[in-house]
């Protein structure tokens, strides 16, 4: 651990390291803001498709112009990206190919074509490793002059693309929002969903070209989708989701760099891994959709059911006028035993709903009130099942047992009215007030 800290400490102050992290962060943010819309429109794989098809676009642009200047390359990549979107949709609509299959066919074919072009055709020189995993480590080597500042070229490109995406989203915020949420309404209002779709695809293609140099064509999709999917788990407003996507993208690039230095491995790959790791954390701990909160919720519910069962059991024993009082061991066994039963009983005693005299259990006045509520819900529901669902008498206890925990006083009141103020259950037992 000390060694790790030391290696981080050494890595931290270097200017190159800062440039690499900044480049990664800017590109990740540029990808993530668009990714939010891809995720929401359930078009994540379209990001994948377009980022792959950028490759043949670049190769073809180079073949035509014989130069590496950015203009033609960008144009070629955007055309290839839009072609992917168009071909996918055309295949789907007119050749009746399922949407995912048409996407799979189009982008893998185009990507393969790109691979063939860069490896086989004379004159095209793309570093293959760079194509697949990017060359973020080398970013500080190629610089451009921006005023008095000397920036890595990849960072400058990233900043421009981030700027373009930001301006487009700010200007057309309501149009993007509406066409993502309800494309039909957007179209009827004069914001054709198709136009918005291709506008988004154009931005994705431009962003993919810019990210291509830094993180490679395969990892672009991780930067497009993963931070946005993470943000979607954590917030429930569109604006915060887009901003958080960008922040998570930037954070995963910084984290990824630190990890890559520590494990001495590929930076772009580690950035994608870090993004995936953050997603995993969000899946576990998201307040609303997280596994942990779901488990907690379920456990709480199970505890409540156990507590209710205990209270109901004690109440019914009292009602029968039985002399015998329930021993706590027997009570726990009767409701299934185990840790949960023990915990449920303990919490009832802690809340002073049940008191314990020696080995036997006794309802406190507060506990009796709570139990009465529950038994009332149970018996009202039994009545309802008999009268309105026509269930036979021997079929109503189990269903009522399942439902009794969820009938609040409002629902009990409506049941009462429906049942003409019935005061006995179908078995002839009194419904407590």
């Amino acid at each position, binding site marked *: 651990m000390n060694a790790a800290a030391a290696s981080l400490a050494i890595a931290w102050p270097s200017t190159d390291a800062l440039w690499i992290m900044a480049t990664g962060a800017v590109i990740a943010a540029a990808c993530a803001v668009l990714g939010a819309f891809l995720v929401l429109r359930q078009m994540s794989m379209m990001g994948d498709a377009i980022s792959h098809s950028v490759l043949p676009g670049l190769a073809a642009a180079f073949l035509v112009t014989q130069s590496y200047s950015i203009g033609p390359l960008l144009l070629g990549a955007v055309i290839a990206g839009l072609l992917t979107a168009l071909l996918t949709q055309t295949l789907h609509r007119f050749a009746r190919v399922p949407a995912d299959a048409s996407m799979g066919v189009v982008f893998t074919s185009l990507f393969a074509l790109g691979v063939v072009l860069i490896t086989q055709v004379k004159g095209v020189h793309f570093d293959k490793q760079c194509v697949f995993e990017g060359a973020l480590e080398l970013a500080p080597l190629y610089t451009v002059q921006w005023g008095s500042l000397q920036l890595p070229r990849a960072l400058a490109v990233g900043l421009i693309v981030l700027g373009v995406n930001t301006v487009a989203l700010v200007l057309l915020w*309501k149009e993007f929002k509406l066409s993502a949420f309800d494309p039909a309404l957007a179209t009827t209002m*004069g914001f054709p969903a198709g136009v918005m779709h291709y506008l988004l695809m154009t931005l994705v293609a431009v962003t993919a070209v810019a990210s291509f140099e830094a993180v490679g064509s395969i990892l672009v999709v991780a930067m497009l989708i993963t931070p946005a999917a993470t943000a979607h788990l954590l917030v429930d407003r569109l604006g915060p989701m887009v901003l958080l996507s960008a922040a998570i993208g930037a954070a995963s690039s910084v984290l990824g760099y630190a990890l890559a230095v520590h494990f001495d491995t590929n930076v772009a790959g580690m950035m994608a891994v870090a993004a995936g790791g953050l997603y995993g954390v969000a899946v576990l701990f998201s307040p609303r959709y997280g596994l942990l909160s779901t488990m907690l919720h379920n456990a709480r519910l199970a505890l409540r059911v156990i507590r209710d069962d205990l209270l109901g059991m004690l109440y019914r024993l009292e009602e029968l006028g039985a002399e015998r009082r329930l021993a706590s061991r027997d009570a726990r066994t009767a409701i299934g035993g185990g840790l949960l039963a023990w915990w449920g009983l303990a919490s009832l005693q802690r809340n002073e709903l049940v008191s314990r005299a020696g080995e036997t259990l006794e309802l406190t006045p507060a506990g009796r009130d709570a139990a009465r509520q529950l038994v009332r819900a149970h018996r009202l529901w039994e009545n309802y099942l008999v009268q309105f669902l026509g269930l036979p008498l021997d079929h109503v206890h189990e269903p009522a047992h399942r439902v009794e925990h969820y009938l609040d006083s409002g629902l009990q009141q409506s049941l009462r009215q429906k049942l003409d103020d019935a005061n006995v259950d179908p078995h002839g037992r009194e419904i407590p007030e």
Partner: protein
Amino acid sequence: MAPALEIHDMTVAYHRRPVLWDIDLQVPECKLVGIIGPNGAGKTTLIKAALGLAPLASGKVEIYGKPYVQQRHLVGYVPQRESVDWDFPVSVHDVVLMGTYGRLGWIRRPGRAERETAERCLDQVGMLPFAKRQIRQLSGGQQQRVFLARALAEQAQIYFLDEPFAGVDAATESAIVELLQTLRSDGRTVFVVHHDLETVREYFDYVILLNMRLVACGPVETTFTPESLQKTYGGRLTILDAAAEAMRQGDPGP
């Protein structure tokens, strides 16, 4: 005065297969119109065609005498509730605000006036207390009310509602009907895709009976008769089906 909606010899086809045949109808303004017909009759398609969302194979649709593209500011639309993703990260207020987007046009952002409109419309459907909720946290009836508030925020003359009563509770249904009747009294024309034949006479004053072709269109008293219902629901026209299928396959026959 041009009718609120005029459809002239319209055929709607998907992949060359007609789903609505030669529809010809006029609806005067100030009516609450039920669009009635069995499943697959083309009720939603009729609405989509009127809104320019479905491809017309022939004919034309006019709103107050002009094509839809010139009149879209007069038209409000409530799509089926299942047509959107209710997990989308927006609040109830955001959704209703979307109703004002059409008037704003490109790039202009909603301001205070639009936000006030949205709040007023939310209040009209009794959903103002829920304005800050994420839309997933609403019941089906509440979601439908939000959609209705969004349509109100469009401040339209003609409304098209696609199955607004599907999966809503009785209280919401009567609240929606009351609101639609108010709209009609204010001079609006409202089209509603509707399924429950029992309530047609109570809710609407005009009906369009549809089953792949127009069966009848007119005031409820004279049009919603046992004979026309029999024609609407009495089985599909098998020849029409067969012809549609032949057109899809592009087979001119022997």
